[in-house]
């Protein structure tokens, strides 16, 4: 319906309105970035204007205090390994449940789906007990295991829906050619799942990288903190020192913004795909 319309005054007005709205959306970023480069006095005198002098050393100070590289590596490790494990276990389980719809598997599927309505807060208190009993507390590995449990429902559901469109004939042909069931999955089915795998990786990454409450409950030692946890504890110490606090915020936000700008096509496509199926 769109291409037939010519660019006219009405569209121009819309464009201007949308651009103004976009500026409004960006104002908070302006405030945070500009003020993170000011001295404390400058910031208190004029929070809206341009810095009198650029204080880049706010960043080098915060980089040291927050031990930013360490927090970044912790976040990266946890996000990557949780993603890898989740893709693996949920693709395999979804495949089996779809291709062998025994009573057990069908009940299992319903159970996985039904669990999605349970809010995290309704599980977290006993989870802390279970996690400490099986040795998952205060360990990045333990946190990753927790993500396996919390992510598997949605991932399995998305894979299950997507697999229905894969024709059975391809798999049958592979079996005739002497492929084992494991080979069929790995060499034939899993590569065909790639579009859904990308969607799942994106949804999981946004969730795990930005998650706060679960890491807060599981990780206690300072040297294994993720970026949100580290920012939280940093903020607790530098509440009123906005010059440093804001530089810390910019550092905390930067990796995800960079990731989004690089991957935005995939991210936006992934969210549309995930929502249609969900």
């Amino acid at each position, binding site marked *: 319906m769109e*291409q037939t319309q010519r660019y006219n005054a009405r569209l121009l007005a819309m464009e201007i309105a949308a651009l103004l709205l976009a500026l409004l959306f960006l104002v908070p970023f302006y405030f945070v970035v500009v003020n993170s480069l000011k001295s404390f006095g400058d910031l208190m005198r004029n929070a*809206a204007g341009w810095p009198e002098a650029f204080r880049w050393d706010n960043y080098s100070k915060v980089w040291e205090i927050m031990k930013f590289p360490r927090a970044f590596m912790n976040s990266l490790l946890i996000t990557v390994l949780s993603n890898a494990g989740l893709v693996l276990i949920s693709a395999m389980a979804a495949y089996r449940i779809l291709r062998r719809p025994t009573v057990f598997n069908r009940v299992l599927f319903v159970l996985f789906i039904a669990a999605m309505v349970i809010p995290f807060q309704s599980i977290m208190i006993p989870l802390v007990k279970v996690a400490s009993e099986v040795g998952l507390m205060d360990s990045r590995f333990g946190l990753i295991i927790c993500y396996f449990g919390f992510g598997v*429902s949605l991932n399995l559901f998305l894979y299950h829906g997507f697999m229905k469109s894969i024709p059975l004939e391809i798999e049958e042909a592979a079996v005739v050619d002497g492929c084992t069931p494991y080979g069929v999955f790995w060499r034939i089915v899993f590569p065909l799942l790639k579009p859904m795998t990308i969607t799942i990786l994106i949804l999981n990454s946004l969730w795990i990288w930005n998650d706060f409450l679960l890491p807060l409950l599981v990780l206690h030692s300072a040297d294994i903190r993720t970026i*949100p946890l580290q920012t939280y504890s940093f903020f607790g110490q530098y509440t009123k020192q906005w010059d440093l606090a804001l530089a810390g915020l910019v550092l905390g936000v930067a990796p995800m913004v960079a990731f989004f700008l690089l991957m935005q096509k995939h991210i936006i496509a992934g969210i549309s795909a995930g929502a249609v199926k969900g």
Partner: protein
Amino acid sequence: MQHRMKRLSDAVQQLVFVGPALLFFCLIVLVPFLMSFYYSLTDWNGVTTRVVWAGLSNFKRILLEDSEFRNAFWFTARYTLAAVVFANAVGFTLALLLTQPLKTRNVLRTVFFLPNVIAGLLLGFIWSFIFVKGFAAIGEWTGIGFFKLPWLGTASTAFWGMVIVSVWQMAGYLMVIYIAAMMNMPRELIEAAKIDGAGRWKMLRSIIVPLVMPAFTVCLFLTLSWSFKVFDLNLSLTKGGPFGSTESVALNIYKEAFQNNRYGLGTAKSLIFFVVVATVTTLQVIYTKRKEVEV
């Protein structure tokens, strides 16, 4: 013999393919969830191993005596209503705008989506600065009263502060879903409606809204469950203040369990929370699903 081998290999496959997913799911989700039914009936403090049966006294206490929990529920309900309505209204409007042939629509889409990739905890900190220092500076500069309000200082402005930040965060995500639905609308229907002389308002109400109803189902579900469970943003923006007036249920449960060490009471609260969230979201999905039309 061959038959038995086949059955064995089938069992091994079941174990290899489904086993890991089932194991982690049971350990992390199912077992703790079932345990919470038991612990909600005890006075467990999380520290000692001695757990004393308390019957329904936790529930009685929550429903009859705990005014903080009631306030938290009331706040969360009002906040959820406002956040869901405004976020969807803004997201839908943005989608309508960005499905027009605008020259800058790719840039615009990026900008509107941007807040959503940032952790809720960091967003709260960012906006606490905006509300305290940024708005004050704009207020001084422009003289507009709106910016001079003590945003995080009073109960009602802090409430709207939470809503503003949530809308800013969620609208872009919803916009993406609405855009996807609008792009999938069958062209013939739109053209036919145009030929029949449908005006813009009529077009929106009788064609576009019914056609994107599945997107409404998804977006309402997402915003309802995000808003009900709000925690990170609440903690970093208002900490529940001033005077507990903006404390969400999630924050209340967290404090009860991990700060007051009343795990038994906390689990009872979390079960009530589960029943409410599950009921509301299920009813919403059933209701909006019924409104979806077949094309």
